[in-house]
């Protein structure tokens, strides 16, 4: 009978696991939708900033601006965005492996999320700043990362700033992405803005980016506009990378929790079968013992 009790308690523990994983799956699904909606809400800002940049890009002031000059300094700064928590399949390791493989000698890291911080600290890559990656993307977080990156770039400490995150393609597919943020490149930005809408799914509606008409740049010089625009473009990069990584994190967690729930259900079914067999065997044994006893007495 001890065997029966053990099986019963195992079944109960699988049931409990399934309840937890199912709840986590539902929570992740809701959070994923929210992150996607938020990403779409940020589009007008990104589109407007891009169209201003596109207008300025033809001018000589733009081509000579230090924000767009190709880097001479080989030192690179990576902003690596991962999640704080695990339980999301290969979400974080995908980004971290990709980055670690392409890192040169002279690199430093701004880590967003505990996983990135742990990874680089244990490999002796200098982590200049660490931000935790909560569900809420606060303006302070965006500004903090943006200012840190701009400061290091402007002071000439680093020649390039790159941002790495898990890009959300669809609920079942996420890919690690690395973009060069500074020096500014219109191609990278356009790519980013177009990538905000996923190619598949409910939100996959593509809006074209306005090609700018002839602006007059009133009273300001183009350099002023460009100088004011640069931090905004960088913060757009940072914001969307954070959103993409959130959407990826939640969908990856949703999928891995779903497979955990399925597996738990399967195990529960198997164990129930085993439990029933063991119980039947015990009953049969008892009955045959009684009959055997009766027959022995009759003889």
């Amino acid at each position, binding site marked *: 009978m001890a065997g029966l009790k053990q099986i019963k308690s195992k079944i109960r523990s699988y049931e409990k696991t399934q309840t937890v994983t199912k709840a986590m799956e539902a929570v992740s699904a809701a959070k994923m939708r929210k992150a996607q909606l938020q990403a779409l*809400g*940020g589009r007008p800002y990104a589109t407007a900033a891009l169209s*201003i940049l596109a207008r300025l890009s033809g001018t000589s002031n733009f081509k000579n601006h230090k924000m767009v000059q190709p880097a001479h300094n080989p030192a690179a700064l990576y902003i690596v965005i991962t999640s704080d928590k695990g339980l999301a399949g290969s979400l974080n390791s995908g980004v971290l492996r990709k980055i670690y493989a392409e890192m040169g000698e002279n690199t430093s890291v701004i880590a967003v999320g505990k996983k990135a911080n742990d990874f680089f600290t244990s490999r002796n890559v200098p982590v200049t700043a660490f931000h935790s990656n909560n569900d809420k993307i606060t*303006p302070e977080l965006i500004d903090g990362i943006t200012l840190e990156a701009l400061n290091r770039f402007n002071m000439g400490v680093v020649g390039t700033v790159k941002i790495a995150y898990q890009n959300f393609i669809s609920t079942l597919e996420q890919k690690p992405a690395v973009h060069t943020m500074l020096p500014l490149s219109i191609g990278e930005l356009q790519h980013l803005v177009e990538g905000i809408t996923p190619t598949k799914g409910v939100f996959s509606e593509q809006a074209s980016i*306005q090609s700018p008409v002839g602006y007059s740049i*009133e009273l300001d010089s183009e350099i*002023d*506009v460009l100088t004011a625009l640069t931090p905004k473009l960088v913060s757009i990069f940072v914001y969307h990378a954070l959103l993409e990584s959130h959407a990826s994190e939640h969908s990856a967690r949703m999928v891995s929790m779903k497979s955990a729930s399925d597996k738990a259900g399967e195990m529960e079914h198997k164990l129930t079968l085993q439990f029933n067999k063991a119980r039947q065997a015990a009953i049969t044994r008892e009955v045959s013992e009684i009959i055997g006893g009766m027959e022995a007495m009759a003889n």
Partner: protein
Amino acid sequence: MKLIIAKVDERVFDGDAVSVTVPGSQGEMTVLGSHEPLITTLKAGTIVIKQLADVEPIQIPIQGGMLEVRTDGTTILL
């Protein structure tokens, strides 16, 4: 005219407006519908949005930003 005022992570205002007055870096200016396209930086001050005549104008204090006027609408990035 269609007016969007946006921070990087939220839309502060999105709708139709009769006029918008902004603290431009060279002085205050008012943009009406069919203004010629332009880009300018903004300094700290207050944006005043006038909608219909019987609606109280909306005031939004800002720390600085950027104004883009296009033929199809006006966008302010904060």
